[in-house]
C-alpha cells in the first residue's frame, strides 16, 4: 500500500509536528512492507536513517495512494489533487470556530467533501465534526502509529 503524509512547514519546536513525525516513524515499524512517503516543503536537512521517503510537496499531486493531511491550509492545496486514491484529513482543532470570518463554503468544501475522510483526535472534535459537518470516519484519543494503522485497516 502507498501511504503519504502531507505536512507543510515542519517545525521541530512544534510539539504536534513532533508527534506526527513520531507517529509516521512508528507506522513504518508496524507496516514494513508498505511504501510510506512524507511530502514536505523543507528539504534542507538530510536524515540518513529515515524509515520512509521524503519528497517535495509538488510530488504529492501525482502520488497514487492514501494521503493524510494535517491542516486546512494543506487541504486547500491537496483537495483537488487527482491522483491520491483517498485523502484523510486528521482534524486536531475546530478551525472554523477560530477563523469565524471565513465563508461557510470554504469550510464546506473541505469538511463535507465526499473525497475526504475525517479522522478526529478527541471525542469533542468527533462530536463537533458530526454536528457541523459529517460523521468522522475514525476517532482516536491520541495520534500515533497505531491509530493511523487502525484507519488504514478500516479503509
Amino acid at each position: 500500500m502507498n501511504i503519504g503524509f502531507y505536512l507543510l512547514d515542519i517545525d521541530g519546536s512544534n510539539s504536534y509536528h513532533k508527534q506526527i513525525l513520531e507517529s509516521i516513524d512508528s507506522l513504518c515499524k508496524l507496516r514494513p512492507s508498505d511504501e510510506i512517503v512524507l511530502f514536505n516543503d523543507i528539504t534542507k536537512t538530510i536524515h540518513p536513517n529515515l524509515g520512509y521517503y521524503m519528497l517535495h510537496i509538488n510530488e504529492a499531486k501525482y502520488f497514487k495512494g492514501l494521503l493524510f493531511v494535517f491542516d486546512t491550509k494543506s487541504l486547500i492545496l491537496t483537495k483537488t489533487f487527482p491522483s491520491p486514491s483517498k485523502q484523510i484529513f486528521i482534524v486536531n482543532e475546530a478551525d472554523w470556530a477560530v477563523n469565524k470570518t471565513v465563508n461557510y463554503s470554504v469550510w464546506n468544501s473541505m469538511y463535507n467533501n465526499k473525497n475526504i475522510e475525517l479522522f478526529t483526535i478527541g471525542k469533542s472534535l468527533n462530536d463537533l465534526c458530526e454536528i457541523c459537518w459529517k460523521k468522522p470516519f475514525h476517532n482516536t484519543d491520541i495520534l500515533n502509529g497505531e491509530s493511523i494503522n487502525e484507519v488504514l485497516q478500516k479503509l
Partner: protein
Amino acid sequence: MQKNILINDSDNIYIKNNIKYILGLLKDDFKIHINNWQGGLFYAYQKIKPDIVIWSTSTYDQEFHNFISEYGDSCKIILFEDAVVSQENLVPILNNIKNLHFVSNSSLWKNIICSLNKLYDDEIFMDFSKNRNGKYLALLSADNEKNKELLTDIIYPNNPDKKIVTIGNPDFDSMVNIGVVQYLDLPNLLNEFSYFIDIDAAYHLEATACGINIIDTEQNLQKAIDDNLCIKIPKESLSELTYRNFVAKNIVRFIKENI
C-alpha cells in the same frame, strides 16, 4: 428610437434583485445602463439622456438631490426607499417634484408606484433537495445579544443531542458557528438542512420555497424545537411574492405606461 433607462447599482440585495428582473423584462424594449453612477450622474445624464432614472434612498446623496432638483420635472425618476429618509425637510421638497415616483411603504410620499413587499428570487430559491441531513441551521441576527439570548442554552455544548449549527455572524462565539454566509450560498444550505431557525425572520419566503421546516422563533425556542413547532406559509401564495412578479406587475408596468 430606443428609450434609455439609467439604473444605479446597489449593494442592497433587494435592489439588486429588482434590477435583475427590470433588466430581464425590459432589455428588449429599452437600452438599459446599469452602473454605480454616484459621482458621475450629471455626466451620465448628459451623455445618455435617459428617459427614466432608477435610484435608491440608501445611495441618496447631495449629487442625486441636485440632480432631481434640476431634472426632476423633465426626466422620470423611480426611487426605491430601501433606507428611511430621515431628513424631514426633504419630504415637501421631494413631494413637489413632478416626475419623482417612490417604491415605498411610507405614507409620507405623494407619488407611490407600489409598496416594498417581502419578496424572494424564485430563480435561485427552490426545492432541489434529495437527502436532507436531519440537522438544524440557525441563521444568526446581526444583533449578537439576541443570538446569545435565544441560542446559548440550546446549542453545543449545552445541548449536544440536537445537531444545531449557527451561521452568518462571526461575532457569535460558539464551536458550532460554521462561518459567514453569502446570499448565493443560502439555497444550498436551505436544501441541505432539515430545520431552519431564522433569528431575524428575514428569510421565511426563501425557506418555504426550498421546502425546509421553519422553526417558529416567536415561541420559546427550546420548546419549539422539542415539539417541532413550525411556521407554514402556503406554497400557493409564493408565486405572488417573487421579484419577477413584483417587477412585472409594478415597475415594468409603470415604465411602459409612462414612457
